[in-house]
């Protein structure tokens, strides 16, 4: 956890932080194109083209993990439906990309995407209106997950649904959305989802240069997201969040509005996840309802756990490491991946509850999210 502003402590926004932050950002933005462009392809340091969208994908996952870390690590809200916000952002972007295909689809219909022609739809449904403009789609990427989080969060926090109950109903939410998006007549492509994209903002999505651009956009989004989360966590609101994570009732009795604090941070987190999803879709080239599956959402929690929750950086590190391991293992020994993932779940909770970043930081600066003290009878 970053140092909190207060007497005797350095500000979270000191020059040394900015230097490190900018150095990391520059390394990510500059080194990758450099290795890709100027290093000869046969040298061992060269970065082949196919790796760029993969790295971009990891960064989107990192943004997603960051967003979960913000609510889980700081506010104690373990959402097991965060994949839903990610997927909704992705669907908004996917709809824009589908509209960009225009007459180049299999059926050559200028207005309707292929799957609608295939299902004999006659006109574009209202919720597809406007998605041919990038700006509209970009607004929706923020608005749709944000609004869902706002409504869902308001309902849940208002009636004080907390802890595992919240986890279970968020899981039910993403499960319901998955079932809904699997339906063909929803107008989102059913189980095939949306794919076969051509252009984004006029650039061909398959070109290496476009992919580098998307990768850079992901780096910027992640950087901005990190600054945003860091700002929230080091602000006074961050303190309130920490307090309500550890003793919600006490914070309420002290006169703070628990609902507003939680709602704000939950919505911000959902928006970040949505942006991650929007950047993810053009880089992997497909969005389908399996992104909503509850299993995906639980996996996000393990990225955060492995990296170290309540550290912000941990979410990013965990997402990248776990996914890199997944890419490598599912290629090298597909049978073992689930064993490894399962073992990660067990070991990080039992043996390394602080995660990688937590272990590396000096103990005096760490505030491990302590387990809530168990009152007598809590186990009921």
């Amino acid at each position: 956890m970053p140092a909190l502003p207060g007497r005797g402590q350095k500000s979270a926004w000191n020059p040394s932080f900015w230097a490190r932050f900018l150095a990391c950002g520059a390394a990510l933005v500059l080194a990758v194109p450099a290795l890709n462009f100027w290093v000869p392809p046969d040298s061992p340091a060269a970065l082949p083209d196919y790796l760029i969208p993969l790295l971009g994908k990891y960064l989107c996952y990192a943004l997603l993990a960051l967003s979960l870390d913000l609510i889980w690590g700081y506010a104690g809200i373990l959402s097991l439906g965060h994949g839903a916000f990610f997927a909704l952002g992705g669907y908004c972007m996917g709809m824009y990309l589908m509209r960009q295909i225009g007459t180049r689809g299999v059926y050559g219909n200028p207005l309707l995407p292929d799957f609608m022609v295939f299902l004999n739809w006659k006109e574009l449904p209202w919720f597809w209106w406007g998605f041919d403009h990038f700006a509209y789609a970009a607004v929706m990427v923020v608005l749709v997950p944000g609004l869902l989080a706002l409504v869902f969060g308001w309902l849940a926090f208002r009636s004080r649904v907390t802890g595992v109950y919240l986890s279970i109903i968020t899981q039910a939410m993403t499960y319901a959305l998955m079932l809904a998006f699997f339906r063909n007549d929803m107008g989102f492509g059913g189980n095939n989802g949306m794919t076969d994209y051509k252009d984004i903002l006029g650039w061909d999505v398959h070109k290496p240069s476009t992919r580098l651009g998307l990768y850079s956009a992901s780096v910027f989004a992640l950087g901005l997201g990190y600054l945003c989360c860091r700002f929230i966590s080091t602000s006074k609101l961050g303190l309130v969040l920490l307090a309500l994570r550890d003793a919600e009732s006490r914070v309420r009795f002290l006169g703070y509005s628990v609902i507003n604090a939680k709602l704000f941070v939950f919505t911000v987190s959902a928006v970040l996840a949505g942006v991650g999803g929007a950047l993810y879709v053009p880089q992997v080239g497909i969005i389908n309802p399996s992104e909503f599956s509850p299993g995906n959402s639980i996996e996000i929690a393990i990225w955060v756990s492995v990296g170290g929750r309540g550290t912000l950086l941990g979410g990013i590190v965990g997402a990248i490491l776990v996914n890199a391991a997944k890419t490598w293992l599912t290629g090298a020994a597909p049978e073992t991946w689930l064993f490894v993932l399962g073992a990660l779940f067990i070991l990080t909770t039992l043996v390394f509850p602080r995660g990688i970043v937590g272990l590396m930081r000096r103990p005096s600066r760490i505030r491990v999210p302590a387990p809530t003290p168990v009152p007598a009878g809590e186990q009921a």
Partner: protein
Amino acid sequence: MTARLLRLVGVLLLIASSASAKADDFVTLVGNLAGDSFAKKEKAVTALGALGDPRAISLLQALTDGRLLRGADGRVVISEAAGGTTRVRDAVTGDDIAGADPDRFERIIVNNRLRGAIEGALAALTLFSIDRDARLVAAQDALRHPSAGEAALLEKAIAIEQDPEIRAAMQLSLSAARLVSGSKEERLAAIRALGTTTDPQIKNLLDEFRAAPDTDPELKKTADAALASIGNRLRLVGVAANLFQGISLGSVLLLAAIGLAITFGVMGVINMAHGEMIMLGAYTAYVCQQLFRAFLPADWIDAYLPVAVPVAFFFAGGVGMALERSVIRFLYGRPLETLLATWGVSLILQQAVRSIFGSPNKEVSNPSWMTGGFDPIGGFTITWNRLYIILFCFIALGALALILNRTSFGLHMRAVTQNRPMASAMGIRTARVDALTFGLGSGIAGMAGVALSQVGNVSPNLGTIYIVDSFLVVVFGGVGNLMGTLVGALSLGIVNKFLEPVAGAILGKIVVLVAIILFIQRRPRGLFALRGRTAEAEA
């Protein structure tokens, strides 16, 4: 056997009592088959079909197979290959002709037109078959092509039919045939008879009849009344069918959720690997079945299921206890961490099962006493396997309630649940109680798996299908009480099944999920919330 004898006697009586001209008819018609003209043969075949003589069945069958032969003297015989030699028997009397050489006979030739006629005649004759099932199918089939000829045949068949079920089916088909072809009085009676059924086919038939322009107004009125009563009955059957399916789905949910009601409801442990305990139980059933098939006599196979239930209980319970001792006990009081760790366990168990058994679905067959079903009011079938699962589920729930409320283990369990330090101070070994409680919950999940293997596929992801649902059942019903779980599961199952015809299966499910999410906002502690100190502490 007696039924068959009676039937034979009936047939013989019929043949004897009918004019001897009738018997002569049969002989003449068989003689006609031996002729050269196809038109004459076809007439003979159709007449044989209408005659309703069971002897004609084997004869016509032989004719299609090319086994009906004609001697030089015009005698018609059937040749039958039996154990390497060919027997020849008389087509009329059925007696063996000793020492006859099949090569001395000439085959009676059929063409495609004739084959069509034979098929029709055979279909009509099945009404007189010795085989009970064939007769029943034929009687029900007759409903589909009502005609005057059909009516005459059915009348004949009813006269000698002994079996009440087949008789009823024949009567129904006869009414349908009379509706199409009978006199006005016959039609009136037929409509009234048809009005007492629930068959959608009959409804269509009556609809058509009513809509025909030349229908008598009186008949029309009767048909309207009959249609209305069929409509009412169909609605009733629909409700009953939905109710049964809902209870059946509810009982499956309940079985999946009872174990969870203990581990989550009583111990407060979020066990995401609960679904995998169900899966292990289902695979136990599969392994038991394979072992029985491989090592025990074939007629013992039905016994695999009663064996699998306790085996699954102890196996899944053992795995559950091992899990509790090795992982969960370090995480008490940290529900979110427990959730993640047990999710890891579930991934490992799934992959382990996939590595051992492979990912394709495994087939677990119902024992013979669980296959089939019965039709209580006409129109929908209650299958035995679903009925047994409902029973099993209530027995399991009852047994669990007894254990919790009437045994010392149950007492210890409740004591540890309510006040751990105090229970410990009274000398209860809380760690042991924890392990046993978790084992009990997992064991019940294992038994649920055996039950689920009887209604669905057994695959490594069996558990994931039920895990979200069973958590919702427990949360909906209210944590920590079995009554809530019962009511929660049954109401979810029934609501789901009643929504399905209105909204479609998937949309119905979505509606239920959203409804539960909204419900939890209103009653965050479920339908039957615990009140008092325990509930407060948990909040």
